[in-house]
């Protein structure tokens, strides 16, 4: 019986530790979200969406230019990155399913997917900011596009691989060329999945700070000029949080809350879309 007791005891200890780990992890993540909500909501007002970022000491004002900058740069990044990513993913899932190129691209893409984003910022600085001689929103958008591509490549390939082969065979048997089969049949069957990938990519880049710091820099004023520095929410949060001014710090919290809500909404949306797909 002694052996039995020992085994039971070690099981109880180990499982207790797992319970503890789960409690510990969930506690901290809940603490972070609670602090974010508590501090962020305090600063939430219409002015946040209508007024420009204030000069020091940062009383009043809002985040309008930063929000607009983030939306503009993210939109351009997705417009540039998503088509490239989709085409590359299409090649990997359709034309080159068995080719060596696909294996290599998949491997490299997976590494790009988790490569440090600050290095991507340095890369874009080297190829765009330095030759142009000044910081610009265009460079910021390009660095975000570089982050969009791997996410879209990955989801496009995965989603196209889920499309049943017989569907392709049936359309090919009707005499449709390969490119039509892909665009008219496979793309359409995988549409929800492809949109999911784009949503995930937007969620990924909308919180990215590091690559924007030395590509788009920051701008205290409203700007829609892609050839000039542009404000973005993450960059503003970074600058304001590290400042000594209370007003700025409050805006940083509010901005952080806005980003988190946006990212969570996008991820939930993407999840709902793909769930809809699988239930069909």
């Amino acid at each position, binding site marked *: 019986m002694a052996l039995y007791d020992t085994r039971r005891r070690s099981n109880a200890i*180990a499982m207790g530790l797992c319970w503890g780990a789960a409690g510990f992890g969930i506690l901290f993540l809940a603490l972070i979200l609670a602090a974010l909500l508590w501090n962020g909501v305090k600063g939430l007002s219409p002015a946040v969406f209508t007024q420009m970022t204030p000069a020091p000491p940062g009383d009043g004002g809002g985040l309008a230019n930063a929000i607009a900058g983030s939306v503009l740069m993210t939109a351009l990044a997705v417009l540039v990155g998503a088509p490239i990513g989709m085409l590359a993913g299409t090649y990997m899932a359709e034309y080159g399913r068995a080719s060596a190129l696909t294996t290599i691209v998949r491997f490299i893409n997976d590494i790009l997917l988790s490569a*440090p984003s600050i290095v991507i910022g340095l890369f874009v600085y080297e190829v765009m900011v330095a030759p142009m001689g000044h910081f610009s929103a265009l460079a910021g958008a390009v660095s975000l596009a570089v982050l969009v591509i791997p996410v879209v490549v990955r989801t496009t390939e995965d989603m196209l691989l889920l499309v049943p082969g017989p569907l392709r065979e049936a359309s090919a048997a009707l005499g449709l060329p390969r490119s039509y089969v892909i665009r008219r049949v496979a793309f359409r069957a995988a549409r929800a999945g492809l949109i999911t990938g784009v949503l995930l990519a937007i969620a990924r880049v909308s919180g990215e700070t*590091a690559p924007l710091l030395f590509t788009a820099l920051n701008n205290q004023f409203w700007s829609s000029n892609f050839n000039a520095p542009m404000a973005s929410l993450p960059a503003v949060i970074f600058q304001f949080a590290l400042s000594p001014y209370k007003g700025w710090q409050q805006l940083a919290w509010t901005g952080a809350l806005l980003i988190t809500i946006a990212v969570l909404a996008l*991820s939930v949306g993407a999840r709902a879309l793909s769930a809809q797909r699988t239930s069909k």
Partner: protein
Amino acid sequence: MNEASDVRERTIPVAAREDDAVTDMAMTNAAGATASAGRASVLRRFALDDLLFRTLTRSAAIAVLLLLGGVIVSLFYGSMPAIRAFGFGFLTSEIWDPVADKYGALAAIYGTLVTSILAMLLAVPVGLGVAVFLTELCPHKLRRPLGIAIELLAGIPSIIYGIWGLFIFAPFLQAHVQPLIIAVTGPVPVLSTLFAGPPYGIGVLTAAFILAIMVLPFISSIARDVFDTVPPVLKEAAFGIGCTKWEVMRNVVLPYTRVGVIGGVMLGLGRALGETMAVTFVIGNAHRISASLLAPGTTISATIANEFTEAVGDLYTSSLIELGLILFVITFIVLAIARLMLMRIEKKAA
């Protein structure tokens, strides 16, 4: 022949129901008197279109490869002045002095490795514990919602963790936890140097802790996915001969998924090494190597984020880019190993 054209006439509009110039043309042409001539031209267009689309997708795939190549080449090119000026000594010098224009990466490399390794020491056991909880212990009703919550948390931008660390966690550590640690470890020989000094709040230990919280959801969700690849029969057989849950985890699930778990951990490590925002807020940006974990330090990414836009002079900028190159090489190796391991478990599951 007639039958074939008949099929084509009917099926093309069905397959591509929406308006499309090519298929429209195919239909009108085929219906017309010059059926075969029209078909030939449509087929030519099909072939051309096919070739174009194939080339387009293939070049996009190659562009992904070029992207990685471009990153490496441009970083290397950008760091040439620093490499020429300092050579190999860049890696072994602790001096980072913008005034004298002398730079060494050792303090930043040390900070990066120490914060990441400490973070993994904390996050791996807890993350695996959470994964075990989710696969074995959690009530069935909560399993899905908790799993989804953890996956969502893995997507939260790192700047959120950074701002929480700066405003809430670091002041809390400074006021309540660090004085206690210093008091308790004071009389113990080795620990007293490890936890020496005034409680700054910010510092290496704080940064490591924030990193740990940040990579925790990653490790948990990957470990959970990997645990799910274990065939139920294996687990049922072990339960059937009377194994406890812990014994099943230790002797069946973990050995079966070892490669995948290590891959997931390495992926988390890659994430921690390159993480910028969560660390920059709380590390203190001090270019020195101190024995105490409570002292401020720096990491490669924090140095770049803090100093790049203020860097004047080619050598300063170039040194920062060389730091970026070093970071990229380190993470590349870690991530490559992680992917190779995860690929192995995927093959096994398939």
